[in-house]
């Protein structure tokens, strides 16, 4: 029992913090948002320090349904980084936009717990529970500014498509269970080993793959993502673009590479084609966007594609989870940084921002402009930022796994990507400022946001220039 508590300590701490904030919320509704956020941040930091201890005792806890392997630990680090950054980004924005705010902290923590359960779960039912806990929290978060029409619409879309995806997952799960009599990945790996491919299991896996593709936003199941991300409040959009990817990618690697390693020749091509399609679709669609937020939304689809290259590679080389983890860490820094700076520009211009609206901003606001340029260059994969080693390592593994063609598609996608990221950079610095510069001056007010952006920038640069620490960490992300 004691071992179980230690194994689940990080998740339990976050749950406790969520409960504490709930209590605070009932005592001081609509007050003390900063205190509540601080509780959330402290819990996230605490969970980080509890991770190594939890990993050491995990294997026997929860009757084999829980993995505390290095993969789980490293992916959870990425989840915690993403949650902490998005909380920092969100505090003032949510405080200004909504009477409440405490709920935001609660939901953010619960979503993090859901993601961590997904990452550690080695039983399909437990994984499904984690997915639902995460998804339900995000349904509410996406509609957090419900009084804005786009937000309500986005949330509704997310609920409907999300439920559809859940139904697919459940259906796949029940087929697998019906054919094998087990939902434990350990037992399933035995079923798959050397044996004939059972049609029912295959159908089940296909549905699982579709469900996961939906949840991560891989083409052709990506259509909800741009609308939802555009509708969601910007801090939520940042979290939504990063967090679930970390968790779902963890699940995909664990279920497919960990659960059905011997059936790689069957599921490999599925993910292979999804990866290629996602890269091309995401990048081409992003190219057509005027709105920076929509561009970032489509670009996050494209990044799912790059990540899938690593997922596919895990089938041939289990160590490819290392590049996957590194990319997710880098992505947490650079994408949340980008959404954070975008939020800042939105506040300054007072509306949804198209890339043209950013004309000359880099000159008027040198610091924020430089940060935004840094994050965009990193997303484009240009050295010396985190995006470069992240992409490079994934391409390296993809190539070694024998997917040279896929790597070439990914390189082509990166070239297209460079164009639309660069377009924003050149608006920031090279386009002349518009004549009318009605600007909301809010110096000092957005200090939490500024911290988040600076932290994200430090992460992006450190992982780009001296990546060895992060690479070392990520290399340990191996399926137990």
């Amino acid at each position, binding site marked *: 029992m004691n071992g179980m508590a230690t194994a689940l300590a990080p998740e339990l701490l976050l749950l406790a913090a969520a409960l504490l904030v709930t209590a605070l919320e009932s005592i001081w509704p609509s007050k003390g948002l900063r205190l509540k956020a601080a509780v959330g941040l402290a819990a996230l930091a605490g969970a980080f320090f509890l991770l190594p201890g939890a990993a050491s005792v995990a294997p026997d806890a929860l009757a084999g349904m829980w993995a505390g392997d290095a993969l789980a630990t490293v992916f959870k680090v990425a989840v915690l980084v993403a949650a902490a950054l998005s909380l920092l980004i969100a505090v003032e924005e949510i405080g200004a936009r909504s009477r409440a705010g405490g709920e935001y902290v609660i939901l953010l923590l619960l979503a993090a717990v859901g993601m961590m359960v997904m990452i550690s779960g080695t039983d399909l039912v437990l994984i499904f529970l984690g997915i639902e806990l995460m998804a339900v929290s995000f349904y509410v978060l996406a509609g957090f500014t419900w009084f804005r029409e786009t937000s309500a619409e986005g949330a509704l879309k997310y609920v409907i498509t999300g439920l559809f995806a859940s139904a697919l997952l459940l259906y796949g799960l029940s087929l697998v269970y019906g054919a094998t009599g087990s939902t434990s990945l350990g037992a399933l790996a035995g079923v798959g080993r050397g044996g004939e491919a059972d049609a029912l299991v295959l159908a089940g896996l296909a549905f699982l793959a579709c469900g996961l593709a939906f949840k991560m936003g891989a083409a052709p199941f990506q259509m909800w993502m741009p609308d939802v991300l555009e509708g969601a409040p910007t801090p939520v959009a940042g979290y939504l673009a990063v967090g679930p990817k970390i968790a779902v990618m963890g699940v995909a690697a664990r279920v497919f590479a960990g659960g059905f390693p011997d059936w790689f020749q069957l599921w490999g091509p599925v993910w292979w084609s999804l990866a290629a399609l996602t890269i091309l679709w995401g990048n081409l669609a992003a190219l057509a966007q005027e709105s920076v937020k929509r561009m970032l939304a489509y670009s996050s689809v494209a990044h799912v594609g790059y990540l899938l290259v690593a997922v596919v590679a895990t089938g041939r080389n289990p160590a490819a989870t290392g590049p996957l983890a590194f990319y997710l860490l880098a992505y947490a820094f650079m994408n949340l940084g980008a959404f954070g700076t975008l939020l800042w520009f939105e506040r300054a211009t007072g509306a949804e921002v198209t890339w043209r609206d950013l004309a000359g901003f880099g000159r008027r606001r040198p610091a924020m402009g430089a940060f935004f340029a840094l994050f965009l260059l990193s997303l484009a994969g240009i050295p010396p930022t985190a995006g470069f080693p992240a992409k490079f390592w994934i391409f390296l593994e993809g190539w070694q796994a024998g997917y040279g063609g896929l790597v070439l598609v990914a390189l082509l996608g990166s070239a297209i990507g460079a164009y639309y990221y660069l377009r924003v950079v050149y608006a920031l610095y090279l386009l002349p400022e518009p004549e009318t510069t009605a600007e909301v001056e809010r110096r000092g007010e957005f200090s939490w946001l500024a911290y988040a952006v600076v932290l994200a920038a430090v992460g992006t640069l450190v992982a780009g220039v001296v990546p060895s620490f992060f*690479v070392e960490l990520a290399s340990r992300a191996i399926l137990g």
Partner: protein
Amino acid sequence: MESGFPVLSFLVFGPVAGALALALVPAAQVRLQRAVALATTLAVLAVALQLWTGFVPRGGFQFEERLSWIPAIGAEYHLGVDGLSLLLVLLSALLGPVVVLFSMEHVRQRERAYYAALLMLQAGLTGVFVALDFVLFYIFWEAMLIPMFLLIGIWGGPRRIYASVKFFLYTLVGSLLMLAAAIAVYWHHGSRTGVYTFDIVQLAQTSYPGSLQFWAFLGFFAAFAVKVPLVPVHTWLPDAHVEAPTAGSVVLAGVLLKMGTYGLMRFSLPLFPDASRELAPFVLTLAVIGIIYGAVLALAQDDLKKLIAYSSISHLGFVVAGIFSFDPRGEAGAVLQMIGHGLITGALFLCVGMVYERTHQRSIPKLGGLAHRLPVYATLLAFFALASLGLPGLAGFVGEFLILIGVFAASPAFAVGTAVGIVLGAAYLLWMLQRVIFGTLPEQYAGLGDLTALELLALAPLVALTIWIGVAPRPFLAVIESALPALLSRAWQ
């Protein structure tokens, strides 16, 4: 000199430190900003000269620095110079203070950011020439794009945005193909030897199977051909040159284009010797087309800057032809021509900038008779134009002559094409001189002043070196020849 001081790291990161220092200087203190920029580039030049005096012309790399960097994939922080990179490092160190001096006289817009971009550009370029690890090389190769993009985009001419984006995208697409090829080489080397490394020296010691060589050669070639630039991927260059500020053009022509020819010598020939030989006729054809096409277009230009930009395409064609002649004289000539072209064309762009700052005019028909009012300027312009067309006794001649011998030994047909380029070169340059400095001076230019002290100071070292290389190329050739056997032994077989 091979003590503990990390000379090469200083050459790469000194300018970065200078750029960071500039960020701390208040925006209003323009004089201090200029002083910081000049002091940084002079310090870099001083250290580069130390490097030159400490360099021993023998095979292998010197002044090596090696640190563990990303052990998981076998990437190291590994720097070093041989005879090939040494001269290019010196060239970029020399052009640093030259462009700063010119800019001190003429740039008056957002100077702090301008000098910071120039310094970052210098850092990236030097890094490209001294990196001995492919990942490191690639990082410098790409990172250099950002300051150049900003230099063209912010301080450039009216169509600067189009030009800067075009420049960026052309280069990026080329480099991505190079990246793919390098990944393929990395895995092959690793599976063959068990050592997974990006070390350029080690990678060059393995022989690769024919099909891999073929595709990897093309991947690298895509990146290098864009940078050189070879026809048909040259179209970014005239745009970039015309729109770039003068200092940008000088660095672009002086050093940046050499990244492509440097890459061909550092990677293509040593790593893929069989593919290089097999594809040599193809590359030579492109080079000769570039030589003649560039020269013909230069003949047709009315814009002074465009004329020199197209002449660059022509001259870089010579360098590529020399490299793919697989003849020791041709190779040595190619490297010397890289340096000579850097000095001469750099100087020519400075001259164009100087006349433009005075007249706001680059159109050749609207200039004329400058020798009447600006005798010193006219003399120097004529000097560099003659150097560029290959007048014996000046730097351009030695390189071109060696290349011609080399290409002739390899294939007389290609040598004929190359020689046609020389004749055309004489034609467009002399015709340009005749129209710009002779004839009658348009009335509105009657009040123009001749070169200032700073401008003379900027041009002086270029004059001196152009003569030195032209009259006594021996020390330079000794350095170059020391590097060739290691680089090319396998391609020569």
